[in-house]
């Protein structure tokens, strides 16, 4: 069996585009608006969510036969919350400036619907290996949207790429101006909206076509 046809690869690749948590399931929009002014924060946020999601899926899937049904949500939440606090602590120890810029949004991964959603709908019904890949895939799908939005916003809003100026001075002298609107949260709404439109058009919108 070819690797790209394997179940594990499919669990990873499906949420990347076809079932992307942001552009298809419309989950996790709040943080996507808040942390995408700069590429750097978007990358760190995407990575943090991916790690949290992959390990929460793994843990919950491994425990899925022993978690008592009546308290499963609380158990899921404790696992997720612990992982988020852990991620926050690690960021504060090694990437202090970025963790300050992300401020409350790392902590708010706990309330990100993607994490709880995947635990409930996927990890509880699939083996750990598959759940882990599903977590990685959803995290990467979320992260890639974040990175794309942040790339556009940082480029148009501040004329920078990863903090380095890329718009030549000559442009500014010729009258080019950074688009202040891109630095505000509504800009992310518009970019995400355009992305969803594009994606639905390209994929032929199988659901409602």
């Amino acid at each position: 069996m070819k690797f790209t046809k394997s179940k594990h690869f499919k669990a990873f690749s499906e949420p990347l585009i076809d079932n992307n948590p942001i552009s298809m399931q419309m989950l996790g929009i709040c943080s996507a608006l808040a942390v995408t002014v700069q590429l750097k924060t978007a990358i760190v946020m995407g990575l943090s969510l991916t790690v949290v999601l992959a390990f929460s899926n793994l843990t919950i899937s491994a425990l899925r036969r022993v978690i008592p049904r009546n308290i499963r949500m609380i158990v899921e939440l404790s696992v997720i919350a612990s992982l988020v606090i852990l991620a926050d602590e690690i960021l504060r120890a090694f990437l202090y400036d970025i963790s300050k810029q992300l401020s409350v949004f790392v902590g708010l991964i706990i309330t990100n619907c993607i994490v709880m959603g995947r635990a409930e709908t996927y990890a509880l019904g699939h083996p750990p290996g598959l759940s882990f890949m599903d977590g990685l895939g959803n995290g990467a799908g979320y992260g890639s949207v974040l990175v794309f939005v942040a790339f556009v916003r940082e480029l148009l809003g501040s004329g920078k790429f990863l903090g380095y100026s890329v718009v030549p001075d000559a442009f500014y002298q010729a009258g080019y101006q950074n688009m202040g609107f891109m630095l505000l949260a509504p800009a992310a709404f518009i970019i995400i909206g355009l992305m969803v439109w594009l994606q639905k058009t390209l994929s032929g919108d199988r659901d409602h076509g």
Partner: protein
Amino acid sequence: MSENLKSIVFALSTAVVCSLLLTVAAQGLNPLQRENAAVDQQKNILKSVGLIAADRAYTAEDIKHLYAENIRCIRVDENGNVVTSDAADPPLLPVYLYRKDGAVAAYIIPIDSRGLWGRIHGYLALEADGATIAGFTVYKHSETPGLGGEIEKRWFQDNFKGKKIVDRQGHFAAISIVKQAKLDTLPAAERINAVDGISGATLTGRFLSAGLKDTLSEYEPVSIKFRTNRLLHLPADAERCETTP
């Protein structure tokens, strides 16, 4: 084992495992985090006197080096006298001094104000005339991102530059954060003591104004010394406080 008992045991063991894990992580990473926080405070002290450029990345080493080169720290008692003994009673106030060409160019006082959701920590730098604000920074707060959280942004902090803590007659007037609309109606003489606030963050502004006023009145004896040119040069052994408060 009954269903309920099983649930309780499971919930308890989950809680114990999670808290153990977090305790170990928090304890293990604590020294690194404290070091980062200390460097961040030094960075904010430097930023308040304009020694940190907005468009440059600084490593922890850069910050420590810049700090050691430019900033000194003294302690004063409630009358504004420099205290060189280590006595901690009565409580002494730390003052950071920005030294340029052998003289004090600005003094920086730590701000610890009430905010809407938690304490606001920052620094207020005053020029050696004891009246003009050289800069204001915030390094720790719990205000709402996008609203009160804007106090950590440069555009807001830049509003403080050049404002005065005294009125035209030279009497102490502190500095207050007011709404743009109200700012426009103020007579010019009072505008030098007012800073344009943040829309949607009236309460944060109100608490911060009160906090700044309290701290500035506490430090007023020091400011008076600066206004009358009595603190420009310091005894060589005046340095008495830790680099971080």
